[in-house]
């Protein structure tokens, strides 16, 4: 005689495994504690930091205007053309190229087609517009054409075939100064061994040839016809001309709010700063992942699990989905609350317009930072889960994942140069924090989604290794 089970079953497919893993996760107190702790620590740290970090409310000019200016007069419509033969890479945002400017006083409106060593060609105007013209380097032919109030930029590799870069509209007087602008913003250096930074001036230099202004070659003797050199703003500069080759130096920047190189106040990434508490929440989430991954081995519960569900790869998949979803929802609550809770402190401490325009949760950049932080929480939990599953013992696994996230930050901010820190921020799991960036800064190491991809890569490799070993090893 043999017995048959009298209990109906709906099978042990993916739905059943997801339900089982969700039941497991929600029925231990540790999960709830971790969820609350994640939100609480994230918000708390963000609020604390928002109250500590302060800046002087910025009331100065909304632009900086200091450069070496070789210029002459032009009345009405016309073009200025020059071939930039070389540019010294004095700073990634050093600028050199043709410019049309309302006058020689600092702050006079302008349009310029500028080559930079680190950010390619840019058509910039009026301290507020910056159009990306592509990743070019010297030598390159550059041309600006004035048609009424419209300035159009062109570039060419050979001086014959011209490509339109873009155009801008300005309020310009009939007679303007046209010519060549060369400048180079201060460089950022680390001070001592700490995380303090300072600046040093840099001097940009560029050589030009084939310089021409049309209509008409104006003789050197006629009014406004000679090339003059002028320091716009106060900076050390120089100019020499021989046989049609112009060598121009300049220091400073032609920039304002809205142009990416603007070096003055307003360069703090306050959206990322408002989410600084996420790093505290990440520690909790990593621990939760490790406990979910390794905890079952501590009590031999893994044997019960794999007896009930012998297809271990599917168990791991279900567990990953349940944990990632739970942590994403938790992380979204944490990062959105942290952003909102940090706003009053930031406003009170001088982060106000015009340098720091107010933002809201629905701004695209804020949305990317907040949703991205929630995704980062989920990926970190998956990384913890995978390492926990691989190592099987919670304590060593936790030390491993915390080291991966914390050591690069401590080492990077304490001891290394800006460049070394950038490499750490690119190559270690810390790169994931780049998803919070909303401004390009001196310490920007990697693009937001690029950094997120790096941490996803770590999690994916660990998860694949966990999936392979969980099937092969004895439980």
């Amino acid at each position: 005689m043999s017995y048959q089970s009298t209990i109906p079953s709906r099978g042990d497919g993916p739905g059943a495994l997801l339900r089982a893993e969700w039941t497991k996760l929600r029925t231990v107190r540790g999960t709830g504690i971790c969820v609350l702790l994640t939100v609480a620590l994230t918000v708390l740290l963000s609020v604390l930091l928002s109250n500590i970090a302060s800046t002087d409310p910025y009331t100065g000019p909304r632009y900086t205007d200091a450069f070496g200016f070789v210029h002459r007069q032009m009345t009405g419509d016309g073009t200025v053309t020059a071939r930039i033969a070389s540019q010294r890479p004095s700073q990634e945002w050093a600028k050199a190229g043709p410019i049309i400017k309302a006058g020689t006083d600092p702050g006079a409106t302008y349009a310029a087609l500028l080559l930079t060593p680190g950010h390619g060609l840019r058509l910039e105007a009026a301290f507020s517009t910056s159009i990306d013209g592509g990743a070019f380097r010297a030598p390159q032919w550059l041309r600006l054409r004035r048609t009424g109030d419209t300035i159009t930029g062109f570039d060419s590799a050979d001086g014959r075939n011209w490509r339109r870069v873009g155009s801008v509209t300005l309020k310009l007087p009939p007679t303007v100064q046209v010519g060549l602008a060369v400048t180079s913003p201060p460089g950022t250096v680390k001070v001592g061994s700490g995380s303090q930074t300072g600046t040093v001036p840099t001097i940009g230099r560029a050589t030009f040839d084939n310089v021409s202004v049309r209509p008409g070659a104006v003789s050197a003797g006629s009014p406004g016809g000679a090339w003059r050199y002028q320091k716009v703003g106060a900076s050390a500069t120089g100019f020499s001309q021989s046989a049609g080759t112009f060598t121009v130096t300049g220091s400073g920047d032609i920039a304002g709010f809205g142009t990416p190189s603007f070096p003055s106040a307003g360069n703090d990434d306050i959206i990322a700063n408002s989410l600084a508490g996420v790093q505290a929440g990440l520690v909790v989430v990593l621990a939760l992942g490790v406990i979910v991954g390794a905890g079952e081995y501590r009590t031999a519960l893994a044997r019960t699990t794999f007896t009930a569900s012998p297809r271990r790869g599917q168990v791991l998949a279900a567990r990953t989905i349940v944990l990632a979803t739970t942590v994403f929802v938790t992380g979204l609550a944490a990062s959105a609350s942290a952003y909102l809770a940090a706003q009053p402190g930031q406003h009170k401490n001088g982060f106000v317009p015009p340098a720091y325009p107010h933002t809201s949760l629905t701004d695209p950049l804020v949305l990317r930072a907040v949703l991205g932080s929630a995704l980062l929480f989920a990926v970190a939990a998956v990384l913890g889960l995978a390492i926990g599953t691989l190592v099987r013992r919670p304590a060593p696994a936790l030390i491993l994942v915390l080291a991966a996230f914390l050591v690069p930050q401590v080492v990077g901010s304490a001891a290394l140069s800006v460049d070394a820190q950038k490499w750490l921020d690119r190559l270690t799991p810390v790169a994931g924090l780049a998803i919070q960036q909303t401004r390009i800064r001196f310490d920007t190491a990697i693009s937001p989604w690029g950094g997120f991809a790096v941490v996803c890569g770590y999690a994916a490799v660990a998860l694949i290794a966990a999936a392979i070993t969980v099937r092969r090893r004895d439980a």
Partner: protein
Amino acid sequence: MDAAIAVRGLRKKYGAAVAVDGLSFTVRPGQVTGFVGPNGAGKSTTMRVILGLDRPDAGQALVCGREYRKLRAPLRDVGALLDAAAPHPGRRARDHLLWLANSNGLPRSRAEATLEQVGLAAAGRRRVGGFSLGMRQRLGIAAALLGDPPVLLLDEPANGLDPEGIRWMRGLLRSLAAEGRAVFVSSHLMGELEDTADHLVIVGRGRLVADTSVRDLLATASSGRVLVRTLRRPEAMSALASAGATVAATGPAELVTEGMKAERVVAVLGAAAVPFSEVTAHRASLEEAYMDLTRNAVEYAAAAATQEAS
């Protein structure tokens, strides 16, 4: 052949240590099969291999004719109790059963039903961390019964149970077998299986020592032994020995002979004029029979332990 569990040529090493060394046996439905051997004989390893948790180095184990890892919703085919300490201490007893039921698509009502069955209905909402070892064993048995399976594997289920609990467990195992299920129970104490097991698989040092019914084992162990009670033991011993029996003293006024029928013992003692108060066929206990069988294995283990320690 309707073997519920079939183990053939099973071999499992952990590093250099051989835990199971060429083990073969079958477990049949409708009876309780005891799996007995000293600690370290390879019982738990064998059970883990049967359940697909550990991979064997050689041989195979089939449950209901299939490899365990190939079973779908296996809780309806096999119920297992491996380690009473396994449930997460922070989880409520009912939730432990609930996630197990979910994983195999079983109705949620099974959690309550099995808690009732093992006498834990009142403790279902308590966290497992506060349970006694006996309560955890009952919870583990509830988990094994969740899918109402035809095959049960229980590793040392009596551990931590009080006498009343052990009696309950015996009754449960007997009634599960009586329903036609195969019940496979391990123990390192033969006494626990007395009056429970119908069949015994005895192992030592990872090898099969005996695969026998309880009745046969007892008959073998008892055969040809006669117990004699007498106040004049030395005279009795010499008389019986000279008549050709193997004699052993088992007490100041008690001896056991081997290789001589009871009638002949009475005749020899009468002829030698040795008075006696009792001559009976000796009935060995399961424990004795087991000790006889496993003595070699235990001695080996003790020697090995001494070597390792030195």
